[in-house]
C-alpha cells in the first residue's frame, strides 16, 4: 500500500522513459502514452475512493520520517486534482492521435507530455515545500519544451514571454522558500504549519507569505501578472494548449489554496488583498476577452477571468467559499479544456482561428456545435450546467460574509462571460457563412478515427459538465470535505507528524 501515493508520479515517469526508448516507433509511443494516462486515471480514482471519507494517505519517501524526508500526502483536494489531471491527460493523449503532427512526435512530444503530467501530479501530492518547488520546475521544463516544440515563429515568441515570466516566478518562489527556511529551519509543510502557528512575529510571516502570493500568482495568472498567458497559450498545437489551459494555471491556484490554509493563516489584510486581486483578475480577463477575435486567444483571456473566481473563494475564507472555489476549479478544468479542444478541432478541420472568417458551423455540424454550446454555457454559468452551481455557491458564501462588492463584480463578470461566449456562438456557429470565407461550404467529412479521437473527448467532457451540474449536490459535498480538511489541518498534521512534534 506504500506504493499507491507514489504511483501518480512513477507511472508518467515510466511511460516517459518507454516513449524515449521507443523513439523510432511512433504508434507504440502513442499507445504507451494512452495506456500510461489510463493507468494514472485508475490510480487517481482509487485514491479518491480511499480518501473520500476524510482519511488521509501519507507516504514517507525513502522511509525517512517527516520532517526530514519528503512526504507525499493525499487528502481530498489532492485526490480531486489527481483525478482531473488523469482525465485530462487521457483525453489530450487520445485527442493528440489525430491532431499531433509526426515531426513533433519524433522530437519526444510524448515523453515530455508524460513528464509534464509527472510534474503536475507531483505538485498535487507533495507535502514538502522545497519538493513542491522541484515539481514546479519539472512541470515548467516540460512545458517550455512542449510550448516551443516545432519552432514556429509565433510559438517561439510566446515561449520567450512564458519562459521569462515563469523564471521570475520560480526565482521569487525559491527566495521565499529560502527565507522561510531561514525563519523556521524546516520545509515540511506540516512542520512549517506547527512552527508558524507558534510564531511571535506575524508581521514577518505575512511579508514572506506575500512573496509566495506573487510567485504563485504569476503561475496562476492573476492580476496584474497574467500577461504572459494570452501571449503564449494560443500558439502550441491544440492538445498542448488544451492541457496547459486546463491544468497548469490550476496548479498555481492549488498551491495558493494549500499554502494559505495549511502553512499560513491569512490575516484580514491578506484576505482583503486576495479579494481585490480576485476582482481585478475577473474584470481584466473578461474585458480582454471581449476585445479578441481569435478563437483561442479569446479563450485564453477567459482562463484569467475564471482564475479570479477561484481566488475569490480563497479570499472569502469560509468553508463554503473554499468548497465553492474547489468545485469551480473542477468545473473550469472540464469546461475550459473542452472549449480549447473544440477550437482545436475547428482549426484542425479548416486551418482558421479568426472568428470573423468563420460562420455557418451550426448548419454544417449540428452535433459538434451542441458540444460547444454545452461547454460555453457551462463556463458562462447557465443552469443546470456545472458553472451555475459554482457561481451560485460562491455568490452565496460572498453574501454570507457580507462581501457585497466582490460578489457583485463576480456576478457582473458572469454576464460578460455569457456575452463573449455568445459572441463566439454568433460568429462561428450561428451567422451564415461569409461569402469569402475559406471554410468549406459542404459539411466536413469525418473518418472513424477522427470521430473517436476528436469527438470522443469533446462528448465526454460535455457529459462531465452536465453530470457535474446535475450531481452538484454530491460534488459540492465532496469539495466541502476537502475545504473542511484545508481549514482544520489537525488531521493533516497528525497524519504527517504523528505525536505532533518533531522526533
Amino acid at each position: 500500500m506504500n506504493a499507491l501515493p507514489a504511483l501518480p508520479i512513477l507511472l508518467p515517469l515510466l511511460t516517459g522513459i518507454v516513449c524515449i526508448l521507443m523513439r523510432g516507433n511512433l504508434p507504440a509511443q502513442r499507445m504507451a502514452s494512452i495506456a500510461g494516462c489510463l493507468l494514472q486515471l485508475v490510480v487517481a480514482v482509487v485514491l479518491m475512493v480511499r480518501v473520500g471519507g476524510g482519511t488521509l494517505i501519507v507516504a514517507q519517501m525513502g522511509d525517512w520520517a517527516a520532517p526530514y524526508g519528503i512526504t507525499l500526502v493525499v487528502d481530498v483536494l489532492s485526490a480531486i486534482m489527481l483525478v482531473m489531471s488523469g482525465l485530462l491527460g487521457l483525453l489530450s493523449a487520445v485527442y493528440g492521435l489525430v491532431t499531433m503532427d509526426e515531426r513533433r512526435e519524433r522530437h519526444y512530444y510524448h515523453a515530455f507530455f508524460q513528464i509534464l503530467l509527472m510534474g503536475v501530479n507531483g505538485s498535487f501530492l507533495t507535502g514538502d515545500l522545497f519538493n513542491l518547488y522541484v515539481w514546479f520546475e519539472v512541470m515548467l521544463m516540460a512545458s517550455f519544451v512542449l510550448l516551443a516544440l516545432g519552432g514556429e515563429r509565433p510559438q517561439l515568441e510566446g515561449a520567450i514571454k512564458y519562459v521569462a515570466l515563469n523564471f521570475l516566478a520560480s526565482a521569487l518562489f525559491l527566495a521565499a522558500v529560502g527565507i522561510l527556511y531561514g525563519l523556521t529551519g524546516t520545509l515540511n509543510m506540516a512542520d512549517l504549519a506547527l512552527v508558524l502557528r507558534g510564531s511571535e512575529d506575524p508581521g514577518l510571516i505575512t511579508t514572506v507569505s506575500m512573496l509566495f502570493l506573487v510567485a504563485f500568482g504569476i503561475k496562476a495568472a492573476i492580476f496584474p501578472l497574467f500577461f504572459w498567458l494570452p501571449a503564449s497559450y494560443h500558439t502550441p498545437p491544440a492538445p498542448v494548449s488544451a492541457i496547459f489551459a486546463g491544468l497548469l494555471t490550476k496548479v498555481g491556484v492549488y498551491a495558493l489554496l494549500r499554502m494559505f490554509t495549511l502553512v499560513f493563516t491569512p490575516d484580514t489584510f491578506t484576505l482583503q488583498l486576495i479579494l481585490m486581486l480576485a476582482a481585478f483578475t475577473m474584470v481584466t480577463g473578461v474585458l480582454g476577452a471581449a476585445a479578441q477575435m481569435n478563437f483561442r486567444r479569446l479563450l485564453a483571456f477567459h482562463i484569467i477571468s475564471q482564475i479570479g473566481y477561484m481566488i475569490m473563494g480563497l479570499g472569502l475564507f469560509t468553508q463554503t467559499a473554499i468548497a465553492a472555489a474547489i468545485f469551480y476549479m473542477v468545473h473550469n478544468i472540464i469546461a475550459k479544456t473542452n472549449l480549447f479542444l473544440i477550437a482545436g478541432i475547428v482549426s484542425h478541420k479548416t486551418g482558421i482561428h479568426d472568428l470573423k472568417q468563420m460562420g455557418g458551423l451550426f448548419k454544417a455540424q449540428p452535433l459538434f456545435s451542441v458540444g460547444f454550446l454545452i461547454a460555453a454555457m457551462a463556463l458562462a454559468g447557465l443552469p443546470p450546467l456545472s458553472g451555475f452551481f459554482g457561481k451560485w455557491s460562491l455568490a452565496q458564501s460572498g453574501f454570507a460574509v457580507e462581501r457585497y462588492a466582490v460578489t457583485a463584480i463576480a456576478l457582473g463578470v458572469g454576464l460578460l462571460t455569457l456575452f463573449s461566449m455568445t459572441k463566439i456562438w454568433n460568429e462561428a456557429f450561428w451567422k451564415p457563412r461569409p461569402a469569402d470565407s475559406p471554410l468549406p461550404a459542404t459539411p466536413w467529412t469525418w473518418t472513424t478515427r477522427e470521430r473517436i479521437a476528436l469527438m470522443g473527448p469533446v462528448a465526454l467532457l460535455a457529459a462531465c459538465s452536465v453530470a457535474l451540474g446535475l450531481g452538484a449536490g454530491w460534488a459540492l459535498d465532496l469539495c466541502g470535505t476537502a475545504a473542511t480538511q484545508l481549514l482544520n489541518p489537525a488531521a493533516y498534521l497528525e497524519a504527517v507528524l504523528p505525536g505532533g512534534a518533531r522526533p
Partner: protein
Amino acid sequence: MTSLILRTAARYLFPLILLFSIYVLFRGHNDPGGGFVGGLAAASAYVLYALAFDVKAARGLLRVDSARLTAWGLLLALLSGLAGLAAGRPFLTARWGKWTITETWIVKAGTPLLFDVGVYLVVLGVTVTILFALAEGEDEAS
C-alpha cells in the same frame, strides 16, 4: 580544429577522465562526489574528444544514442527506488546487501549506488546531447 598536440593529448586523456569520473561516482557514496558530478566529468571527456577530432568521432566513441542513454539512466534510478517498494517499504527506501567473498574482502552494496549510476547516465546523456547538438549546429553554420 586540427591540433596535433590536442589530438594526441585527447587520446590519452579520454580514458583517464572516464576513469576519474567513475572514481568520483563511487567516492560520492560517503564523500563529496557522486553521480551528478561524475556524469559531468564523463561528459567532459566526450566533449574534449569532440573538440580535438569532431562530433561524429565522439558519437562513435559513445556507441549508444545519447537520448537512449538518458532513458536507461532514468530507468535505472526508477528501478532502484522500486526495490524499496518490492520489500513493502516506501518508494526509494534503500536496500543493502553484504557479500563475504574472502575473510578480508567484504562487499557491501545497496540500491543508492544503483540510483547514483542512474544519475550518472542521465547527466552524461543529457549533457552530451546538448553539447553535441550545439557543436553540430556550429559546424553547419560555418
